[in-house]
């Protein structure tokens, strides 16, 4: 077991290093940040001083080496545009993204699981087919267009909800959040709904497929033969068994939601991490882009690592020998 964990840890570290190299050299190619940062009237000497201060005069491999050494100390660089450490810049945007993801994930589960059960119990009925068709639509609609249509319908045409921004925030445990103000919640509804729809569709599909399969299992037949009521069979036996894959997927999807929130945050001008990434790409703020990708990679690697190790702990059939299967 220890050997397996160690091997996975080494793999994860290699992935991080590989990504850092790839991203650093790719981002190095993004335009010339100095052009954007320096006003045209500045003298050549001042220009050179700035280039030196940003470390842009060094060869790229040397810049990478400095970055790597600092990264190991937890310092991912300083933003060209904002002049503050990028880690704190990104972390400051984290609550906004996190509350969006949290609300949309909860909404997707609360609506998706019952609908999935309904569709899975009577797969050939008319409502079930309508639900399953709905899931294809839910997957199909491009996130940015769906967001725009939500704005067009609920903000422009009906005037019920605000079009953009985060609204009023209050401090909760030292973190600014929109979850506890009416205005904040009103701002949250559309973006989180936009983010929730594909996940809702995914959840419905997973639960429906799991339910249909579970209903043919021996333990369900046995419970039925014993005279257990259908409601109890579904609620106690079936639901518990299908929740395992659902929880796994929810965990993994949490990571990709952070990635997809980029689009939603752009449409709704939501001041989260995704919006920061897009803005930084436009402003050629290289350190922020690199740091964002590194932190996202760290998140994915960590989630994968935890999932793999948990699987190995929970399911003895998983091979621990470290064979590359």
């Amino acid at each position, binding site marked *: 077991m220890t050997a397996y964990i160690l091997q996975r840890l080494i793999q994860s570290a290699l992935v991080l290093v590989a990504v850092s190299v790839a991203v650093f050299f790719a*981002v190095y190619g993004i335009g010339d940040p100095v052009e954007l940062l320096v006003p045209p009237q500045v003298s050549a000497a001042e220009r050179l001083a700035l280039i030196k201060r940003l470390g842009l005069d060094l060869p790229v491999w040397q810049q990478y080496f400095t970055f790597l050494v600092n990264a190991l100390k937890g310092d991912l660089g300083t933003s060209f545009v904002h002049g503050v450490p990028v880690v704190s810049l990104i972390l400051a945007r984290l609550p906004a993204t996190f509350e969006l993801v949290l609300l949309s994930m909860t909404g997707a589960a609360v609506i998706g699981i019952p609908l999935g059960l309904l569709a899975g119990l009577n797969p050939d009925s008319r409502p079930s087919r309508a639900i399953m068709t709905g899931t294809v639509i839910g997957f199909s*609609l491009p996130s940015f267009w769906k967001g725009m249509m939500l704005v067009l319908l609920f903000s422009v045409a009906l005037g019920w909800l605000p*079009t953009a921004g985060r609204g009023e925030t209050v401090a909760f445990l030292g973190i600014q959040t929109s979850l506890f103000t009416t205005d904040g919640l009103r701002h949250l509804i559309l973006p989180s709904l936009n983010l929730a729809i594909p996940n809702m569709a995914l959840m419905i599909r997973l639960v429906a497929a799991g339910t249909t399969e579970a209903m043919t299992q021996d333990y369900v037949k046995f419970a039925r033969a014993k005279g257990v009521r259908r409601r109890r069979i579904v609620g106690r036996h079936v639901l518990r068994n299908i929740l395992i894959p659902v929880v796994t997927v929810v965990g993994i999807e949490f990571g990709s939601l952070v990635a997809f929130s*980029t689009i939603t945050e752009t449409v709704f001008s939501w001041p989260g991490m995704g919006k920061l990434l897009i803005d930084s790409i436009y402003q050629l703020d290289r350190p922020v882009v690199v740091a964002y990708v590194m932190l*996202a990679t760290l998140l994915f690697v960590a989630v994968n690592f935890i999932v793999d190790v948990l699987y190995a702990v929970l399911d003895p059939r998983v091979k621990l020998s470290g064979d590359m299967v």
Partner: protein
Amino acid sequence: MNKPIIPDDTATPLRRKVLRGIRKRPTTRGAGILLACLVLLAVFAPLIAPQNPYDLATLSVMDNRLAPGAASMSGSVYWLGTDAQGRDMVSAILYGLRTSLLVGLLSTLGALTIGVAAGLLAAQLGGMVDALIMRIVDFMLGFPSILVALVLLASVGRGVDKVIFAIILVQWAQYARLMRASALVERRKEYIEAAVNFGLPTPYIMLAHLLPNSIGAVLVVSTINIASAITLEATLSFLGVGVPVTQPSLGLLIANGFDYLLSGEYWIAVFPGLALVLLIMSLNFVGDRLRRSFNVKGG
């Protein structure tokens, strides 16, 4: 399938089954017809479109942001309105459809070719090559495609060829994994063993036996992936890193319209969006049906 299989005197019962599956279901049939229409419209766009939206000389800035159904200065009617440059939306959508479909098809073809080659090599050679290829595949699949493509395009800049390259980069791994899985199953079968014992050269066995017999699942999944390639392109163009402004795809048309959405000029964003959604949904419905008819898992 619970129903008894009725003997069929034609040579390809599977093909008939699939076609019947499409014809009998109204949603799938509708989606199939719609898809065919959209493809035809895109192919013949230069013949159908009232205007060449790329030729700035034919555009009249005086006609900018006209509502649907408005008449132009020269008397013709803009059925879906005009955009900020005075471009006829009907023409812009038809040409945009062309760009979107072109990017979707070419990138899927590219990703398919690379993925199939990698998967086949991994399955056939095994050992270190297999391990290496599959590690790279795992690595690629670990990231959300939008993030990878976004950062890549941010550094290389806009362009149809660059978008296609970015989509190939994020999609090939999926095909490689699927191809390897089905090739591994196929490789255990007796006819392959027979071919090996005949002393046929390995490359020949791979290309003539293994490839045609294990590519089915990959091809089916690729139908749905055309839709996701088109979505990805549209999203990248919306974010401003996709196709160039001179050759707008549907995604870029929507992005252009976004600025005018809040002031009530809905048609610039809504109509290209509808075209995009219809294209993606028809591909998804047809692809989903194909997947079920051929009983392909994953993808």
